[in-house]
């Protein structure tokens, strides 16, 4: 940059702007950056550091032990089984919630008497704390006092004693029922809002062109709500990946470890067995897995752009 030349030919250095003015933009973003570093980067780096140590609340020795926790993780069948259980819940609950939520949204798209009341009732489960929902379903499934077995007994005409949360055959359906009951309304709300925003003129045009109901749904409605669907799937997918409360309230991961999710196992290791470093290694592996899945998904659907 050339220096300014004065009328008398004397070169003048331009007056330097005050420091605050020169760095004003950085000052503006500094608090946000600090907060992000504090709540995001610091815990991540600290967890990374801890995962290479040998910290347990019961031992004084906290020395570094390299990749020992990660090596242990590779051979920890319970960890991989828990991951498998989590994926089972994810694979069943997510599409079920999407389909049911979408059908409900379609149902309530048209004006009908008492719609507001029905919608309010449908949405109720979402406002219940998941741990409370789990405990409530546990009572509902109780083999002796629970209404579910009682209703089945009335239908069957003889006492029915299904051990919903003890019997391996019934425990997954029981958890999935509770989970789907609670979170389908969330899908419903998002999809209902999206459906209401679909351009009516496009639908009318398609109808005039002779498109059937299915064709309008497939070629007009679904493309229009696709971004919302994807975001809804991502939110619920991530939620299901960290599934804890309902399962904990219902089965605590049992029978044995049959319904133990990755979050429950991490909790058990970290907060019941106090293996802080090993739990940190688990948490990091889960974060990396999740990040990879989310980035791939976003990349695929071009939402990130």
């Amino acid at each position, binding site marked *: 940059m050339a220096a300014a030349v004065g009328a008398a030919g004397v070169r003048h250095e331009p007056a330097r702007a005050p420091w605050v003015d020169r760095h004003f933009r950085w000052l503006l973003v500094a608090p946000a950056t600090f907060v992000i570093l504090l709540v995001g980067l610091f815990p991540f780096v600290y967890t990374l550091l801890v995962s290479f140590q040998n910290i347990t*609340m*019961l031992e004084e020795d906290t020395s570094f032990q390299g990749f020992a926790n990660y090596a242990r993780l590779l051979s920890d069948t319970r960890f991989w089984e828990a991951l498998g259980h989590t994926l089972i819940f994810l694979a069943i609950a997510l599409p079920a919630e999407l389909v049911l939520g979408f059908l409900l949204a379609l149902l309530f798209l048209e004006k009908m008497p008492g719609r507001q009341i029905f919608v309010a009732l449908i949405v109720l489960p979402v406002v219940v704390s998941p741990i409370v929902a789990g405990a409530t379903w546990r009572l509902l499934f*109780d*083999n*002796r006092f629970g209404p579910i077995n009682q209703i089945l007994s009335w239908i069957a005409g003889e*006492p029915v*004693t299904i*051990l919903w*949360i*003890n*019997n*391996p055959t019934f425990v997954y359906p029981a958890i999935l029922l509770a989970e789907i009951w609670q979170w389908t309304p969330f899908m419903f709300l998002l999809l209902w809002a999206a459906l209401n925003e679909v351009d009516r003129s496009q639908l009318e045009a398609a109808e005039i062109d002779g498109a059937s109901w299915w064709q309008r749904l497939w070629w007009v409605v679904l493309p229009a709500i696709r971004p919302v669907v994807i975001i809804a799937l991502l939110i619920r997918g991530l939620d299901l990946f960290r599934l804890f409360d309902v399962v904990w309230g219902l089965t605590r991961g*049992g*029978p*044995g*470890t*049959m319904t133990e999710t990755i979050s429950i196992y991490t909790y*058990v290791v970290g*907060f*019941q*067995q*106090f293996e802080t470093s090993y739990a940190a290694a688990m948490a990091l592996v889960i974060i990396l897995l999740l990040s990879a899945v989310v980035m791939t998904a976003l990349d695929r659907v071009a939402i990130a752009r």
Partner: protein
Amino acid sequence: MRRMRRREMLAAAAAAGVLTATGRPARAGSAAAIAVEAAKKLGPQEITIVWEAGLQSLDPLNFSGPLWEKQTGIKVKVIEVPTAEMFTKILQEHRAGTGAYDALNVIPAWMADLVRAGALEPLDPYVDKYGYRDELKEIAPVYRDNQMTVGGKIYGFPDDGDVFVMYYRKDVLGDPKVQATYKAKTGKDMPVPPKTWEELADVAAAINEATGKKPYGCAFFREPPYMQFMFQERFRNNGGKFFDAATMKATINSEAGLKTFQGWLKENELGPPGMVSWGFVENLAAFLKGDTAITISWPPYGRWAAGYGTEEKALSWVPKSQIAGKVGYAMPPGGHPQLAAGFSLCVSASSKKKEAAYLFIQWLNSKEISLQRVQLPYALRDPFRESHFASEEYRKRWPEAPEYLAALQAGAVNGLLDLSLIQTDKYEEALRQGISRLWAGEDPKKILDDVAAQWDRITQQIGVERQKAAYAEWAAKPNAYPKL
């Protein structure tokens, strides 16, 4: 007889109410009086104590806390924590070093881990300073010798005589029809009460047959957290040892373990449908309603079955007993009951008011105050001193109270300690999962082999030699294994 009993109950409840409201002053020169006098000199302040949430904590909230404040000016803040979180909270607080907890309730099996972590204050200097050693000696031997020290030092005062007791319906087991059925099935006179698990199963089968399952012959809680205590008891009564002391290889999958699991499965057939999902309350409700004839549980079952104190508001959730006056008390089959859980009173090593905390727990645990506390109908503290078992006051609480106290006293002689090693909970957790798998229908032998393999892995992680030393210390205690 019926009217008489009701009157006795009301009198007992009234007495308990008076106790709740006032307490009794300590005898001059007693450990309680010494603690009060010393605490007065410390001046007004507030101490915190960690206590199990729920009924247990009504003791310091309604009785001992206000009484201590009245006598010493020291206020007691009760931190209620669910049992499952107590160990974690205590340890976390210790690691954080906040000094938030002054006194602690600790399950004795945790003491070794907490001492290793440096979370508990050694109490010997305080015991000597405040002249408590003589009264400590009067605690029933099984608690005193096993639940008080770690490495020869006192870290806690045993404060709860938790022990499994068998409760049976005297009217049902005394029914000639049931006895005739038993004799027809086995060719022997029916033992009342049954002394072995085989006898218990035969008696239960005879009851089922003779009464058409009204009541069912037997029922037990089956939730894994309780059942791991049951396993520890029955496994050892069956002659099992948890580890090979020389190699520290787990031997839980021995014949004794398999016999225990198979026995449970057999008894499930004799109890009500769905029993495998029962916890403490479901089993209690069934027994108190008269739906089941034999069960095993902690001491409060016996008090509530007799109707003692169940008029209290805090016990409104306890079903009204339909079997008062019909219940017999005995040792569970095998004769060596589990001292399942229990509580010891300790001082937090990170407390900033150790002196005041110590004086409070000495006072709580003292002969005079503890006698009042174990008679609180709602507070779940069970007799643990010889003087409690012999107390004339307690023996008059309900007509069968002397038999009840005799059963508890027998437990305090023959009881078996909870397993206590380095990181005991990991071993217990593996066992809990195994039990859960048993209820799900998996093969008992395979489960036990898996649990044993898990135990071996845990031992390897902790260090075989370290764990061997911890196990040797535990196994050397007089009530670690029965003298069969």
